[in-house]
């Protein structure tokens, strides 16, 4: 009997430990980070309390990221919602020496080349922020509400392909989540399976 109880307790302990490695669940408080962006400014989630924040995991070499920037889809979304007071942080968690890792200069060059419209491109070369969010894909999207709670986690849209031709017929989950949030509704599809390349952690 005693051993059974012990096993049960150990199991619970083990499972909590394992869960910690997963993404923070929708509805929970978004983990905070303090990172430098490509312009040298410090960026955190907590400094934007009171605003909606979008986190977008980024790797300029990934075909899925190229799909959404090459078509102008991501820029359009960034422009539309930063225009409505939403903070948009693009995060690059590729480790040095791996695909998609950017120095500040390279990041700025990429931003002007692609005419991106985000609030800031945040550099996370040691992958700390990425791991704390359980960010697994590029792109992997999070929407955080003004209270600092995650209200959406998952894919950019409903068509998991690298083909830019699929964008127009896909449902853009991030757009829907932001529109619903901004009009005071609960996000109807708060958790989807993200698709893309894996984040290149070291």
């Amino acid at each position: 009997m005693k051993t059974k109880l012990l096993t049960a307790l150990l199991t619970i302990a083990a499972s909590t430990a394992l869960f910690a490695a997963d993404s923070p669940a929708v509805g929970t408080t978004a983990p905070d980070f303090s990172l430098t962006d490509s312009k040298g400014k410090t960026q955190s989630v907590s400094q934007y309390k009171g605003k909606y924040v979008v986190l977008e995991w980024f790797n300029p070499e990934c075909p899925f990221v190229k799909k959404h920037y090459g078509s102008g889809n991501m820029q359009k979304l960034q422009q539309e919602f930063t225009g409505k007071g939403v903070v948009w942080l693009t995060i690059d968690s590729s480790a040095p020496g791996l695909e998609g890792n950017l120095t500040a200069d390279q990041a700025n060059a990429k931003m002007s080349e692609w005419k991106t419209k985000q609030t800031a491109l945040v550099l996370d070369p040691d992958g700390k922020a990425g791991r704390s969010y359980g960010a697994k894909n590029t792109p992997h999207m999070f929407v955080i509400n003004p209270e600092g709670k995650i209200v959406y986690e998952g894919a950019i849209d409903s068509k998991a392909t690298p083909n830019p031709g699929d964008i127009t017929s896909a449902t853009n989950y991030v757009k829907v989540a932001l529109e619903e949030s901004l009009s005071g509704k609960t996000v109807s599809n708060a958790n989807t399976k993200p698709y893309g390349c894996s984040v290149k952690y070291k």
Partner: protein
Amino acid sequence: MPRLLFAVLFFAALPLHAQTYQGRELVQAKLVADVSAVVPGKPFTAGVLLHMVPNWHTYWKFPGDAGIPTEINWKLPDGWKTGEIQWPIPLKLNEPGDIQIYGYHDEVLLMQEITPPASLSASTVELAAETSWLVCEKICIPGSANLKLDLPVAAQSAPANEEIFSRYRRSLPQNWPDTKVAQSKWQREGNELRLTVESAALANYPAADFFPLPEPKVVVSHPKVERTGDGKIVFRVPIETDDKSVSSLNGIVVFGQNENGADRNAWSLTAPTISAAAAAPSMPEGFWKYLLFGFIGGFILNLMPCVLPVISLKIFGFIQHAGQDRRQILRSGLAFVAGIFAWFIGLALLLIGLKSAGREITWAFQFTNPYFVLAMSAVVLIFALNLFGVFEISLPQFANRGVLGWTAREGDAGSFFQGVFATVLATPCTAPFLGTALGFAFTQSSWTILLMFFAIAAGMAFPYFLLSAQPAWLRLLPKPGPWMVRVKQLMGFLLLATLLFLIAVLGAQRGVEAITWASAFLLVLSLVCWMKGAFIVPTASAISRSVALVLMLVLVIGSGYFFIGQKFAQAKMVSSETVAHGDWQPFTPQFLESEVKQGHAVFVDFTAAWCLTCKFNEASVLESAAVRDAFKTRGIVKIKADWTNADPAITKILKQFGRPGVPMYVLYPGNNAEPILFPELLTQSLILEKLETVSAQVAAK
């Protein structure tokens, strides 16, 4: 304009044919068939063979945390058919950052069955497949190829590419084995699904894993594997989607000597064929507690509204017994108790049979069948007529004609059937405790179900057993006398009230037309009962008795055939949507889901026309002015889920909440908070109290 330029640039970056990276062709793709020629009408297997350069991988049907599966788009002439892709067992690969993917290194053959039409005019056919894939190592590159294979058309064909096809056929997951070899069971625990596999064969392998194949809308996290001391393997899959209805997953159970070893085998698990764990009479946790609940529930069943006429019958029986000697009373009491047990054990065996046949099982499921309700109506009517004195029941095997009153043996048989009858009428009620106990038992082994019904029967029989064993207590009841005839007749009216209820149930199930024909049949049945009383008497001559008997048979069979077999059977079903529910919305899973998703507070009344507890709760609580007002002022969406005809969508939800049947009351407090489950018997204060907790949130909206 620059945007367009980007688009062109990036399109160019996605090669349409096999891609090269740093001078290497990463994936070589080709089409192969397992036959040398196409024989018209004869299925064969073709496959896309992908060769990856070392360390690069393509993906399985479910890619895991990243990546996308290889896609094959066959371009075949009209009349050709293709089967599903047969995916070999993939490797589970881990990348930094807790990223887990399922895919293939080096080489993979994705096979599909191809069926050519029965006649082919050409001498050769071109099989073509547009294939696209994502290949990754440290980076990911999409590729595609338009693959072609020319095959001659012939009357006969020889096997081709035998080595590769047989190798990859061996690496396909197999069907789930017989339950004697392996049993599987899914359980939902909060945001986690648990798959328990009990298999001696599997326990021998050091490496065992579960690779999920979730539906597109379901987001799963990494499965964890646990081995229990008794040889079971538990796979725990966290479900990230906020959908409480996900109760199982498709997937494969992979096992071998090492993780990712070449010798691995797999069994595929598809949701509908998942077998319930059976046999082994192991005692699950909380077993005794639930058994006690069953006993208490059975006892309370005596007090539930639908058993009222039967209680009166039994009390009447005891009054009749009061003058008899002790042994006599005990025998009769035990016969009654045996009747209760007989029905419950019979019901348990039937449920076990249905369960092992893979059917959904629920409490009082028999009342969802209109023919059962009709048969019950007939039995209730015949009993009522008997109580009115229209005819006497004489069981042929104990025939003791000419002797009025009850012989000992006849009395026993009568008590036995009274016991059965009482219990049959009790089943549309779910008493408190009973729901919990049965909800538990239905997920357990056959032995547990049987024991649970035994406990319920014991609980229900307990007071009668006690009264029979202690006849001294019977003295409290009045002395027998001529007044009993009047009481008997009064009880007859109580049974007619029950009949009214049953007919109302039939009406809800089948509509007015059906109850008209059912009533016509019941009328003929009454006539036959009267004939029995009037002509089948010892004083009548053998000839007139025979004539009456033949006439009675003709009437029963004839009216049964015409009114029931023809008219009743063809009466139009009334769908529950067309039934008006006042200010309640009719239930559909989509409506409930969308209301809950929008963050509205929703109250769902799971009910059925034949469920008296439901009707009682509705009349005394849900439709009371105080509760109606509370719902209204708080803007709570009211949904009525009508289970009268056993709507499977409703059965599914009942199961999610672990309830075996109706009544069930669930309050979704809104804003995606956990739903609140109410007990089977409602009180106004209970509802109002819970509504208080919701009001704050809803008011804030």
